[in-house]
């Protein structure tokens, strides 16, 4: 069975999961062409 500390870790992990980092959080601010992710048609090239 999970110990109390594991239950605490699960609870806090859930809190972290609600505020996931975004890829652009690891990149310098780009003034002119900031990322604006949005769903584009699947038949458009994604990569």
């Amino acid at each position: 069975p999970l110990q109390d500390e594991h239950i605490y870790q699960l609870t806090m992990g859930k809190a972290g999961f609600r505020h996931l980092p975004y890829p652009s959080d690891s990149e310098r601010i780009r003034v002119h062409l900031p990322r604006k992710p949005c769903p584009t048609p699947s038949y458009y090239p994604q990569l």
Partner: protein
Amino acid sequence: IEDPPGLPEKTEYLLREWVNMYHSPAAGRDSTKAFSLFVQQMHQQGILKTDDLITRFFRLCTEMCVDLCYRALSEQAQTQNVAMTRNKCFPTLDAFVRLIMLLVKHSGDNSNTNTKINLLNKVLGIVAGVLLQDHEVRGEEFQQLPYHRIFIMLFIDLNGPEHVLEVINFQILTAFCNTYHVLRPTKAPAFMFAWLELISHRVFIGRMLSLTPQQRGWGMYAQLLIDLFKFLYPFLRNAELTQPIHFLYKGTLRVLLVLLHDFPEFLCDYHYAFCDVIPPNYIQMRNLILSAFPRNMRLPDPFTPNLKVDMLPEIQHAPRIPLNFANMITPNSFKIDLDSYLKTRSPVTFLSDLRISLQSKEPGSRYNIPLMNALVLYVGTQAITHIHTKGLTPSMSTIAHSSHMDIFQNLAVDLDTEGRYLFLTSIANQLRYPNSHTHYFSCTLLYLFAEANTEAIQEQITRVLLERLIVNRPHPWGLLITFIELIKNPQFKFMNHEFVHCAPEIEKLFESVVRSCV
């Protein structure tokens, strides 16, 4: 001890000043002009007078940056405008980071690098301290944003092409690894997603595993992965995963795949330490690590008819294991008896006491798995040395009738099903790419199967091999050649065993392997 009166106000004024200077056109290249002006202001305000004031200044700045983020994040709860939050926070956070980088770069003179590194360790420690306190006080309201941004931008800034920083790069890496170890998921679980993002960032991996000479970053990076595996252990072992843990597990697999593809030698070197902290039932993740092999090695197809494993050139060479696993055999009295038994087959009670020695007092596990793993690898490596000193090479005949094999056969016979499963798992964890350990432990597993005095032993050997084969790829080369030998070699009469026919799908699976072998 409370801050001196007026210091918070002074700090807020200075931080605001710096942010404006950092973003002003007059800041100059890498903000150096702004910095030289700002340092004078810090002097005038007496901030740099004592170590204590500098410490308080950085803590107050960190807390102010954090507060700014929480205010912006609380507004985001209404607006849902995520970009807005980042646009509000990052200019201040990035300015604060640049100030830290410039202070580290310019503190002390260039010959005395200790001042620089001490300041960096201090600042990282302060940010980590604020994070841990925030984590504890806010609980589930904790947010990783400010800390993640500070750490990653500071790391990128300190790894720029600056000679002054290049000279102290290893100490910079060490400082960050220490900080990330302090903030490991078991200590700050609400920060764990940002934490894995930080340690898998392309610049961090590049520095730790590729650019740092003589692989000096490998041990520290391995420690961070062990921190991650230790966090996952209790949840993976129960296999009942919440969505966040499942998400973290998938993220971990992605990072391991990058390491398998780019740095297989790193996984080869530290496989032993990783297997100690990966739950036995997390087969695919363990297979991924055990499948790594040196890039300059070409693995013969395991299905090659009449493959002569013992003729492969690499099979004689011992794999690198930069870990003193012998030291993990405790207590010392047990190690002394073990060495004595290996040499002289005495004390004879050693074998009968073995099962007790391997029991664990840890809640939730009956056996001491790290001790089991260390014992198996230690006895196996001693056996290989022993065989080589006789001018022989490991084979089904040369490994037999030795004190080493006494121990393995005793464990196979004397342990209960759980203990035997863990023992056989320890052996199977050595079945990797062509090397002397893979060869010896492959022979050992086949020998234990051939010499088994009960079918249960043979069944459990089959179980340990099969559960590793039915998961998705990758599969370690040593596992495949062992299983193929077990099925193909008539000496083992494998297909005659009852457990091979225990269920139609199992029978079909074996037959498909037989067909691919034949």
